């Protein structure tokens, strides 16, 4: 009843996400998480701890980038004073609440870090190149950075969501002003956070390797995958009968355009990184690509170029397609699969030189399912707590009347 009391005098009706008939979904998510946890635990005790830690790192990087991407889209929304995204902002804000939980899955990686990151086990003085990087690559600083990244990302997303939901109650525009003041410094913190995260957790797998593009490369994939996740969530909510008359094909048209834009952006960054390293042919830069362009990984790396750029580019080029909800959901699911392939090629070659190891696919998949199902579980729980879109945002009307 309180929802009705808070309803604005004019405008669309207040909507809450209902979980009454979602019991099977929650049950299914818990079962999936339980089975994956059992597979991972079994793998750790019976087979290979190192393999399980790499699988966890893979699952973690896949999910973390999506959460970071959703935070990026909220920041961009506020920094540009965007109109179109007001109606889907609450979904992004709820996606970004995952920073409350995702650090739990980083704990085993942090505890077993010296198994994954070889530089942690090399004593000072034994490796000249590594000694030159000790200012950055030392365990206490590495741990501090990880803690800072989680804290900052959680803090920003928490403040943004708190102010956004507070505005639902009284419609005070001061919250919009607060948010505006917060987002500009936050963009800097976000860029630093995702760059250091990418370097510490993924590039650190090969401590000899140099690439100045690495942070941007990971970021490009993050924003791309987060937009796909937003599309899947919004279409699924619409299919379930929510957001009727709130989100329409005009919003999907814009999301499709951004999906296409970030397809091109990823290709630009990815090619820029590869091209300069390939042309210059300096040993300390080529190590990453030599490993991924030889033996079993060559096929997957070539596939990545086609699947991450050419196919989605052509799929998203045609204008009417971007206004078709079912089509966009199909493309978005495909995008997430390719994002999984992208991170597979980033993480796993550090462990398996020769190519994909069949045995490891079980734990890799289990890690993704474990983390993703846990985050989806809490996402659905958190989505019920507040209205499905910002009820009294000053830009709500423009967003509802959006025309491309």
């Amino acid at each position: 009843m309180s929802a009705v009391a808070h309803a604005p005098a004019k405008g669309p009706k207040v909507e809450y996400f209902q979980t009454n008939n979602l019991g099977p979904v929650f049950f299914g998510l818990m079962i999936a998480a339980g089975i994956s946890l059992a597979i991972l635990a079994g793998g750790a005790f019976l087979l290979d701890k190192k393999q399980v830690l790499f699988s966890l790192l893979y699952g973690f990087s896949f999910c973390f980038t999506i959460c970071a991407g959703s935070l990026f889209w909220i920041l961009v929304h506020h920094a540009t004073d965007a109109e179109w995204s007001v109606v889907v902002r609450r979904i992004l804000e709820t996606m970004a609440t995952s920073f409350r939980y995702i650090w739990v899955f980083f704990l085993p990686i942090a505890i077993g870090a010296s198994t994954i990151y070889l530089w942690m086990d090399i004593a000072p003085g034994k490796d000249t190149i590594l000694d030159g990087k000790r200012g950055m690559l030392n365990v206490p600083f590495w741990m501090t950075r990880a803690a800072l990244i989680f804290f900052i990302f959680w803090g920003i997303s928490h403040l943004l969501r708190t102010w956004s939901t507070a505005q639902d109650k009284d419609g005070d525009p001061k919250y919009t002003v607060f948010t505006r003041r917060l987002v500009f410094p936050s963009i800097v913190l976000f860029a630093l956070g995702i760059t250091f995260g990418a370097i510490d957790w993924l590039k650190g797998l090969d401590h000899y390797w140099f690439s100045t593009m690495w942070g941007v490369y990971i970021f490009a994939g993050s924003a791309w995958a987060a937009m796909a996740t937003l599309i899947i969530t919004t279409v699924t909510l619409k299919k379930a009968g929510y957001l009727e008359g709130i989100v329409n094909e005009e919003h999907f048209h814009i999301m499709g355009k951004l999906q296409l834009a970030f397809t091109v952006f990823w290709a630009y960054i990815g090619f820029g990184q590869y091209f300069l390293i390939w042309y210059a042919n300096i040993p300390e830069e080529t190590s990453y690509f030599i490993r991924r362009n030889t033996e079993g990984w060559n096929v997957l790396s070539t596939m990545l170029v086609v699947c991450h750029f050419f196919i989605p580019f052509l799929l998203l080029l045609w204008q009417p397609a971007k206004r078709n909800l079912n089509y966009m959901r199909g493309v978005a699911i495909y995008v997430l699969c390719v994002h999984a392939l992208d991170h597979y090629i980033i993480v796993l070659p550090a462990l398996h030189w020769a190519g994909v190891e069949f045995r490891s696919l079980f734990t890799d998949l289990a890690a993704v399912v474990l983390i993703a199902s846990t985050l989806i579980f809490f996402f659905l729980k958190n989505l019920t707590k507040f209205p499905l879109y910002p009820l009294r945002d000053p830009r709500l009307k423009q967003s509802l009347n959006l025309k491309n």
Partner: protein
Amino acid sequence: MQKSAATEGEPQRVFGIAAEFDSPAALYHAAEKCRDYGFKKWDVHSPFPIHGMDAAMGLGRSKVSLIALCTALCGTTTGVILQGYPSLYEYPLIVHGKPLNWMTIPAFFPVIFELTILCCAFGALLGMLALNRLPRWNHPLFNWERFGRFSDDAFFVSIEADDPKFQETRTREFLESIGAKNITLVYE
């Protein structure tokens, strides 16, 4: 009925009828009515873009994107042939120890990309100009003095005499019925 200024005595071809509306909203609804009446060769003129006007006019999709796609593909093909043929077949040179087969394609990519973008931009610009029949020296609508205000504070609808549904009196009555002001016959 007003008439646009023209030299007396000489036989003149009628370009069409133009009329003025008070506000963007009035122009928008007038456009919907003209669309529903079935006019084909007509236009609206306002000092700024009005959201949703293309739907109100029933314009459908612009062909510029198709032209741009075609010219972009021409650019891609040019880039591939222009570099691939001499570098791999006509005058092969090993540079930086890079292979002499299609695996060298990263080296060709920047030029392929730039040519694609360049041709796409040219296609979009020139295609837009061609579809608008631009450039031209003058337009008959400027024979009506009042029409100059279209870039300042006035909103106009113009219906061309070539339109199959155009009939001088009936079109004027139609424009009167939808609330137009200063309905004027414009000569070429």
